[in-house]
């Protein structure tokens, strides 16, 4: 009797190793960051060194007490020292002539705020490692405070809604673009709804890190902090791409390419209405958020025309 094998989705072709993480990790249900870590370890393989910080990811990477959740080499350091520690590790291995994949895994608070100086420094020196920032637009581990990637109008515990103030007043840092403009070997945006795109970018980052710095900015919505049902995480990711709130692109040495062109973008309202942190927005405030999103998209689109990166052969 012929047993018809169920065909696995295409993304399985990219997996090198099994999941290096144990099941049942105690982190918020529906967190895309945990999925990202598991996915990353499958795609990049076990022979990596992860550099991480105190953050939501620490819960997955540190383990609890003396028990670890995973089998990977892990260097946990302070938020100020991620890019620098990775520099130290990769430089030492370069000195002894051993090819090693060092992966920094941090949140936006580390990458865009307190650890930005070493990140920018390492990017400028074009150090040979991968830096992955999972962007949940705030300090979620400490209880949802704003960071410099928090979008305009968003409600956080440090930008509350009251009679005198109405959410985050600034538009936030465009960190992936800033990193790409360091003219690093590789910079890209990715998210968990487009796994094949993410896998390709991880693999490309691993290749490109031999030439220099590779940066991947992953949109990672936080069900707990943003206020949406935990089964909608991936839907939020998908909607962020479809509304051009989070365009998917990659850049090599300052040359840009959109990896996912949205022909008919959905209105931003479709994304915003899924998320409670935007629920208070007035039409005027919504217009300001739309303007910022539009401008950011135009910037990337413009770059892909002015400084185009050729398609892969």
């Amino acid at each position, binding site marked *: 009797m012929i047993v018809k094998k169920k065909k696995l989705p295409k993304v399985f072709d990219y997996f090198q190793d099994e999941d290096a993480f144990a099941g049942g990790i105690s982190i918020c249900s529906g967190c895309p960051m945990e999925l990202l870590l598991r996915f990353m370890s499958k795609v990049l393989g076990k022979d990596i060194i992860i550099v991480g910080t105190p953050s939501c990811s620490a819960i997955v990477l540190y383990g609890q007490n003396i028990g670890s959740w995973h089998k990977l080499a892990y260097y946990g350091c302070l938020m*100020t020292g991620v890019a*620098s520690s990775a520099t*130290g590790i990769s430089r030492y291995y370069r*000195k002894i002539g051993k090819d090693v994949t060092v992966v920094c895994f941090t949140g936006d608070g580390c990458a865009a705020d307190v650890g930005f100086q070493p990140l920018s*420094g390492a990017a*400028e020196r074009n150090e040979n490692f991968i830096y992955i920032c999972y962007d949940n637009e705030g300090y979620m581990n400490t209880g949802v405070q704003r960071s410099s990637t928090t979008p305009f109008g968003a409600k956080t515990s440090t930008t509350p809604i009251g009679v005198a103030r109405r959410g985050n007043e600034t538009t936030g840092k465009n960190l992936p673009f800033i990193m790409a403009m360091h003219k690093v070997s590789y910079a890209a945006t990715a998210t968990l709804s487009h796994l094949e795109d993410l896998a390709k970018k991880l693999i490309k980052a691993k290749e490109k890190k031999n030439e220099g710095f590779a940066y991947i900015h992953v949109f990672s919505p936080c069900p707990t902090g943003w206020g949406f049902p935990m089964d909608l995480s991936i839907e939020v990711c998908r909607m962020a791409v479809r509304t051009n709130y989070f365009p998917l692109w990659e850049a090599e040495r300052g040359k840009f390419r959109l990896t996912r062109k949205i022909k008919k973008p959905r209105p931003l309202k479709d994304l915003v209405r899924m998320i409670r942190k935007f629920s208070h927005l007035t039409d005027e405030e919504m217009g300001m958020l739309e303007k910022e999103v539009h401008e950011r998209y135009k910037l990337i689109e413009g770059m892909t025309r002015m400084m185009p990166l050729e398609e892969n052969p």
Partner: protein
Amino acid sequence: MKRKYKGEVRTITGNAAAAYGAMLCRPDVVALYPITPQTEVVEQLSRFSADGLLDAEMVEVEGENTAMNIAAAATISGGRVFTASSSWGLAFMYDALLQTAGFRAPVVMVNVNREMPGILAVSTGQQDMIGTRDAGWIQIIAEDCQEILDLVIMAYRLAEDFDIQVPVMVNYDGFYLSYLSEGVNIPAREEVDVFLAPLKEQPERPKLVPGGPLGCGTHGIEKGFVELRYKHCAAMERAKKKFDEIDRLFGESFGRSYGGQIEEYRMEDAEIALVASGSAAGTVKTVIDSKRKQGLKIGLVKLRMFRPFPSERLSRVFRGKKAIGVIDRSVCFGWNCGPIYMELRALSPEIGLIPIMSFIDGLANMDISIVHIERMIDSVYAASQGKPYQRVTWVVLEE
């Protein structure tokens, strides 16, 4: 191109001596960031690298914090590292400094002592070193350019010893030593290789390797953490005798030794004593020689190791003395005295209840002059004769 270094006697500055010391020890990774008065160390190391004398990964970092993080991570990966800083740079790497010690990463760094009350106090003073005394680092202090070079070499032997594995900070006075040119006997690289060779024969320390399940920084909480602290303290205790031993072995190899944790100068029959550290010790020795000619039985204890504090040897050397004066180039806030003085006072039960006097002098490039030292000795002598004495003296304010 890699070049050999045969060794020579040259007139070089303290900063250059530190750089030569580092270069001879063959670090794998060197993290560099300039700051007055340390800058020349950075420049000299870059010169060595360009000239093929230093085969290391040179990282010209964007800040001191990065320098220390690089040093710690490269060491945990298995490498030998070097970095140097001073005052504000040391402060900017404070979090990384604590983490390096917490990781027990055997980093060796040079700290060129400088004052730090505001940006303009570009002058010598040990306050930066004192500010990090409880960071978990071994802190040693050099008196002259030759000792700087020798201490850097000894520091690697101490830090990387399997029984120690604690980072070492080599301190020397900014301006007084950093820019002072002296004749320095620079050993050949082969000699240094031989001196450091025993480090390779000891068991390998745990290293961060890809695929290896080593988690760093995942310090346990509660009892596991207490145990880590306990072991760190125990290693610091072991470092005292180890430093004495390394100093002796260094003497056997290079013909120069300094006495280990402390240098005792004319202490055998001394009735009263001064305690000093760093570049001022030389001046104190000169004054002691002249006072000895006048018949005063006085000696000097030069503190070479501040962390761990050489309590056993200090207790022994001061037992039976009549009075002690301690010269501090920094202050201890909240106690209104010098920090070395304060720590020495903790040894009172061992030393006996004799007058111990604190002299705060030499802050912000003020010379610890011969006149100052003579006045200190006069006060200590008077105290030893049972006369009432002032516990703390801010020397320049009493002129």
